[in-house]
């Protein structure tokens, strides 16, 4: 049942998208409005699944859009607005999480994989080059394979 209600919530978010950013919400100053749009793409609609408030039609997303524009008109910087939102809703509200101890793995994990992988590849390539011929001789054929080769050769002979 719980699953159904959550699914329902998610679907509400998905289905009325045209209502996202209504004309009435928009700011008169086009430069400020453009900043609002960019900023809203990085703010999560908290009741939706992986949607920014810019895309979402949920009531809460609308409230956040209006709130965000109020702060912009009041003269806040982008960073100040994000800070304000995080204070109210936690890191969850940002679609790009801040870099801090609990997100080091998230931000630097791929880099670590890349560095370790690059070292591994470098070692592998250099060893490959220095490998001795006898280390890498092809595996000898099994009896069954010998038989099959003989059969194939026979077949070819017959054809010729």
């Amino acid at each position, binding site marked *: 049942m719980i699953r159904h209600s959550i699914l329902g919530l998610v679907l509400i978010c998905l289905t009325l998208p*045209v209502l996202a950013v209504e004309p009435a919400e928009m700011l008169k100053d086009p430069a400020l409005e453009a900043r609002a749009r960019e900023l809203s*793409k990085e703010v999560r609609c908290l009741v939706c699944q992986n949607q*920014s408030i810019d895309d979402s039609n949920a009531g809460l997303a609308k409230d956040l859009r209006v709130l965000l524009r109020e702060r912009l008109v009041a003269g806040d910087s982008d960073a100040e607005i994000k800070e304000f939102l995080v204070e109210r809703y936690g*890191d969850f509200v940002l679609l*790009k999480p801040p870099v801090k101890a*609990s997100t080091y793995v998230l931000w630097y994990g791929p880099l670590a*994989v*890349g560095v370790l992988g690059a070292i591994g590849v470098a070692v592998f390539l250099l060893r490959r080059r220095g490998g001795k011929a006898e280390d890498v001789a092809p595996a000898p054929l099994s009896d069954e394979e010998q038989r099959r080769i003989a059969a194939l050769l026979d077949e070819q002979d017959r054809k010729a």
Partner: protein
Amino acid sequence: MIAEIGHYALTLAFFVALAQTAVPLYGAARRDRALMAFAGPAASAQFLLIAISFGALTHAYLTSDFSVANVAENSHSLKPLLYKISGVWGNHEGSMLFWVLILALFGFAVAAFGSQLPDSLKARVISIQGMIGLAFLAFILLTSNPFERLDPAPLDGRDLNPLLQDPGLAFHPPMLYVGYVGFSLAFSFAMAALIEGKVDPAWARWVRPWTLGAWTFLTAGITLGSWWAYYELGWGGWWFWDPVENASFMPWLAGTALLHSAIVVEKRDALKAWTILLAIVTFSLSLMGTFLVRSGILTSVHAFAVDPERGLFILGILIVAVGGSLTLFAVRAPALKASGLFAPVSREGGLVLNNLILSVATATVFIGTLYPLFLDAMTGDKVSVGAPFFNATFVPVMIPLLVLLALGPLLPWKRGNLRVAVEKLWVSALFTVVVAGGILVLSDEAPLAPVLGFGFAAWVAGGVVTELAERIRLFRIPVGESLRRLVKLPGAAYGMSLAHIGIAIFICGATGETNWTRELVVVAKPGDSMTLGQYELVLDDLSRIQGPNYYSDTATLSVTKNGEPFAVLDPERRLYPVQQMPTTEAAIRSGIAGDLYVAIGEGNAADGIIVRVWVKPLVPWIWAGAMIMVLGGLFSLSDRRLRVGAPKRSAKRPGGPAVAEGAD
């Protein structure tokens, strides 16, 4: 009655899978031909039984048999025929049944087309395939029975989620499933090779077409899903970095790496252990995707904790499959000896780098998708990882791959000269500079992203053309001779060129859409007009239309472009009364230069409705690029060198291989 037959066949399939797993594996270990020969018929029987079961469920949907709970929950008597059929896989139980159907289909394909495979390898592959089937059949029978009855049966069903009632989404799941379940075969081949203790070029020749086939379907499936999201969700996005999308994207990335490393095994008898590992990882990511989507863990860790039965079951399968295969790998991989030597600067070296970058890309998506779940489960901290994170991390990871993409195919096998290869790319470099410079001059604001995007696209396209020109020795031999060579190029060569050029086209589309989209949102009443760029739109009319299982508010807009009549668009807002759910049906006018996209929101004629208009340059290039990649996959599959059985068949026909190729 028919539903019971379906259930019975499914149960029987479980026991066949049990025998399919045990008998050939034991037979292969004992070198007992009779026991190994059991594999083929068992795989065929399993496919037949699951097909019967799937047929029974389809029958229940077609006849709207609402005494079957699954049909009652996901169908409706008024639903159009296409969606009655697609409804079969548009729900949890049915989609799992479809999953095992595809799995069994691939097992059957090995039995049917694998006559050239060594007996023991074939027996082991089919046995492993049976083992995967066994796990998922148990899952369906124990936790997700699609044939459960309702008594009393309801008068009508609850209908399928209207968002899914769409032709794009009717075909998206089958494509996607053939794709990522298809990787099961690469996995089974890898396991069988580890048990045999032998991986050789012949093995790679068997694995590659199956992997390529799976990859081709997966590419098509993901593309179809993206296209659906674009036109159906009504806000014009095409990729959201949603965990569900990532679940299919990760196997795609790993599968792409596998496709490239298998070439090295086939041609050069090197990178064996790595290729085996990639096959394991690719299918494990497919399994993980199934777990993520089917366990409900994505909606919330807590929803999962409340109803964990299904999730834990798949998690168990995942752990056994990954743990078991990696253990086997750890034990047996050191025995795999490589024979092909190569210098760091060589085609092999380039493909190793390709694999490194694709692995890092996969890891980026993996960490980004799973870390929030992990953090929540461990500490209760909640973070969101959305599109801005992936754009900041994934895109930079892929850039070196694009640089390499032009260069790699120009390097010879074994040992290459970097300077020679780079010098060959002078045309490509020139083209890149011209394109990037052109964008710089033409665009008026924030040109960095488009300059980079189109620049890299030009670089890749230039590289592909250069490689093709090298191959046919253009301008070094008479042009006629070059053309003759071009026509005679093997399918795999065309496949590579197409797949790579598809990437360049895709990048153009993605860059154009992301950077140059223009938007207009207004409230309009009939008679009002609005202008966006070269387009002027007039809202002519608003009307209510009755569809088969929905009502629709349809707006009619006539559009002029630079004053000339351009199109009449009719975006809709639909309401599906059974589920009380509205959907938007955007009206899109596509052209090679881009789309004009119009969607409407709530409202009425008196107060006006919200109209959203987008001009999205180059959007169709996104899907065109992806479909060209699919075409590349198909071309490569058509290469008869990949079909191990072909030489034998053609040898029996008079007239030699050329005739046989045409007849195939």
